[in-house]
């Protein structure tokens, strides 16, 4: 181990990595403005900040995906300037990207070993058996019991996230960068991941952990570095921070609470005023089934209701929403909207009837990555701006809609409307998809992991927005892996397990334990 050269920021003297004055600009916009901090060997540093603060950019520089405009990185006392991801791998750095970097047309094992396939002896051929066996071990370590020769395209978002983690484990890394690893993981998988992380820490692996779930950061990290607008605005040992302090450092103002007050459905007194019969059935689902995915799902979403859908990964929550929106087939069951039976489910017709659905895969299903922010925002509502008969677009009304919605979702002010969404930070991309649907002012809103990657400040406002929609008579169905979020946001929570609805709790009965038990299923002893 190299002797320490410097211990400005940290009290420990065995630093592994240090950033000095890192700067990076995209198209003339400075994204990192002289970032400096140090990561101690064997330590775990939490990196937090608003969406677009520059966290991923910094990690991309460390991982060799990007080169800084200025500044230096020191790794184990010697200079480190990776020109490509291979350089980073060679120096023992593994990087779990925020936007999962998996190839859906390849198998799980192939994704894991893509650049380091085991060979059968001296032949040029891949040693399939050995590769798959190692993959099984790695998958077991992250808690995924899936055959390693399955194509990644058949995996749900959460499963993919675990594969990405297994991939990072497969290189004997000294330093692992986690960029929001839990966004699609439910409680159980998250716990598994944390257990894994502590095992790795015990082995002396250093980690940088980026997350918007501050509780996790507090729970895991020794030190915290706060980025705001490309600058380090605070750093130090975790115990020197409180949640309030952290949040106010991140967003530059104080945020007193994480969830807005929710007046529960029954207590509302101003029903008449709101102009709708509160609690009238809005979306009725009756006996929806699809072999192997869903079994006999029935529930009712009422006006003004925020309905949560909880469950473990693979419980079929996303599948349910997809079927309701006409994206996947169903073999049985009927769906009624406003009492009227829908003969055929198709996104177009449902959107016309005021239904909206935010999918869990923002990049593959939510965004046109090479289109501009403005075009993405207005994709759903485009017909409203097209004057008949030629559907001539009204530029001014489009523009004002974009202005309006970007303020509502608090899109990073650094980004312009003509910028391709591909170049936005992960959280800001999520805001664009969300904004796209909110512009539609839907009456039924289905949200699959709506706040994936969105920072705490903006989250609060989005929750408020959801409540506001509900108060105006809309029904909201929220799928989330974050139980805090569901309990803070919803009026009622449905729990799914193995493709069936297993529990239905009104707000008054919200109980972590009970939800978790239901989600695990009755044969609890079988679960690890």
């Amino acid at each position: 181990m190299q002797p320490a050269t410097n211990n400005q920021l940290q009290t420990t003297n065995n630093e592994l990595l240090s950033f000095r004055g890192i700067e990076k600009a995209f198209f003339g916009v400075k994204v990192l403005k002289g970032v400096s901090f140090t990561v101690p060997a064997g330590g775990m540093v939490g990196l937090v900040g608003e969406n677009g603060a520059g966290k991923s950019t910094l990690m991309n520089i460390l991982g060799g995906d990007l080169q800084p405009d200025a500044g230096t990185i020191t790794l184990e006392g010697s200079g480190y300037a990776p020109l490509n991801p291979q350089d980073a791998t060679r120096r023992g750095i593994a990087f779990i990207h925020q936007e999962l970097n998996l190839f859906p047309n390849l198998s799980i094992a192939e994704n894991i070993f893509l650049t380091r396939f085991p060979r059968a002896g001296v032949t040029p051929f891949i040693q399939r058996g050995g590769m798959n066996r190692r993959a099984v071990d790695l998958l077991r370590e992250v808690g995924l019991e899936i055959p390693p020769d399955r194509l990644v395209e058949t995996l749900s978002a959460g499963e993919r996230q675990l594969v990405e983690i297994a991939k990072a484990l497969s290189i004997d890394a000294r330093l692992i960068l986690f960029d929001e690893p839990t966004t699609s993981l439910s409680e159980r998988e998250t716990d598994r991941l944390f257990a894994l992380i502590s095992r790795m820490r015990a082995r002396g692996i250093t980690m940088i952990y980026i997350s918007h779930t501050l509780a996790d950061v507090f729970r895991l990290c020794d030190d915290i570095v706060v980025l705001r607008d490309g600058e380090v605005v605070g750093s130090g040992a975790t115990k020197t921070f409180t949640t309030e302090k952290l949040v106010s450092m991140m967003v530059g103002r104080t945020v007193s609470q994480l969830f807005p007050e929710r007046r529960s459905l029954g207590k509302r007194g101003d029903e008449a005023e709101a102009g709708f019969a509160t609690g009238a059935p809005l979306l009725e689902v009756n006996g929806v089934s699809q072999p192997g995915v869903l079994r006999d799902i029935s529930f009712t979403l009422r006006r003004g209701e925020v309905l949560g859908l909880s469950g473990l990964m693979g419980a079929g929550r996303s599948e349910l929403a997809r079927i309701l929106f006409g994206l996947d087939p169903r073999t049985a069951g009927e769906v009624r909207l406003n009492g009227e039976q829908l003969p055929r489910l198709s996104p177009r017709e449902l959107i016309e009837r005021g239904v909206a659905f935010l999918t869990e895969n923002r990049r593959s299903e939510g965004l046109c990555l090479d289109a501009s922010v403005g075009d993405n925002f207005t994709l759903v509502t485009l017909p409203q701006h097209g004057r008949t008969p030629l559907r001539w677009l009204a530029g001014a009304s489009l523009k004002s809609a974009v202005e309006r919605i970007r303020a509502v979702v608090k899109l990073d002010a650094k980004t312009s409307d003509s910028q391709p969404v591909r170049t936005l930070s992960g959280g800001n991309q999520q805001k664009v998809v969300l904004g796209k649907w909110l512009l539609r002012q839907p009456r039924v809103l289905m949200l699959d992991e709506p706040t994936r990657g969105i920072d705490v400040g903006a989250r609060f406002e989005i929750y408020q927005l959801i409540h506001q929609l509900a108060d105006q008579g809309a029904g909201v169905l929220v799928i989330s892996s974050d139980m805090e979020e569901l309990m803070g946001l919803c009026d009622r929570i449905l729990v799914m397990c193995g493709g069936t609805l297993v529990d239905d709790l009104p707000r008054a009965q919200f109980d972590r334990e009970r939800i978790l038990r239901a989600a695990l299923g009755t044969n609890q002893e079988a679960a690890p």
Partner: protein
Amino acid sequence: MTAAATTNHKPQTKNPLGWFLSEYLGLGLTVLLFLALAPFTPGLATSNNLLNILGYLLPLLIVAIGMTLVMISGGIDLSVTSIIALTSVVGAKLMTGDAGVPTIVGVLTMLALGAGLGALNGAVITLLRLPAFIVTLASMMFLSGFAIWLTQSKSIYGLPGSFLALGQRLPISLALTVVLALAAHLMLRRTVFGRWLYAIGQNATAAHISGVPVRAISTAAYAASGFCAALASVLLTARLETGSPVLGREILLDIIGATVVGGTSLFGGKGKIAWTFFGVLFLTVLDNALNLLSLSQFSITITKGAVILFAAVLDAVRSRFVVRSS
């Protein structure tokens, strides 16, 4: 309101290299090529030659406009040349001989047939979810074989004068092309249809989930391509005074080449009518100049390849410059 749109993402064109960095590089290259060759190429810069170039360019441009729409949607249409041939012989059969329908009926039939065949392509591609390449390849073979069978290899002569004027009076064909190009341009830039077309090309799944009528719009793009091919067929048939079952057979690669050289992506979601115009102009001027230079055939072919490569390299350098200079 937040401080929205305070920064402009687009590269500034104020710097001295601005012109080189702009998307009008293609046009600039064409002009440059023209100016560079003019002194050595007898007759290049004469008004007659320019009119000549134009006469050749217009039908190509029309087909390429249709191709651009299809390619923006992420597809490809290999059947355009066969649609040209089939509409040519059907139109000519109708307007000549004993049937002898009036020109206007003949032309409208040709256009309707072209649009219909395009729509059929589109419907098959979208409804059965088949790859555009192979569907339009099959329809290329079928329609071309059908046109030749229909005429038993004989081309058809003796078209009415009112029809011939469409292709031979330059102002008429020019006006038709300009109207079409402007309509396509405005449609892409300013209408819901245009935005949808780009969205489909960029991410058809996301577009479908966002309520874009993906099938209808893609089908419409193929119909538009068939229509454009038929319109080009009107001009070509009139220009050559012949309904021919092999009309346009050789120009497929030129059409796709010009569209791609212009900058439209084969993978969809990217393209402009103006770019396509530059691409067609570039290839046509190049071809014309090489011809006037009276080089031997292999020199012409080699030079053509080299110039295309050179232009493409310049363009690649340009786009990297755009990234770096910002």
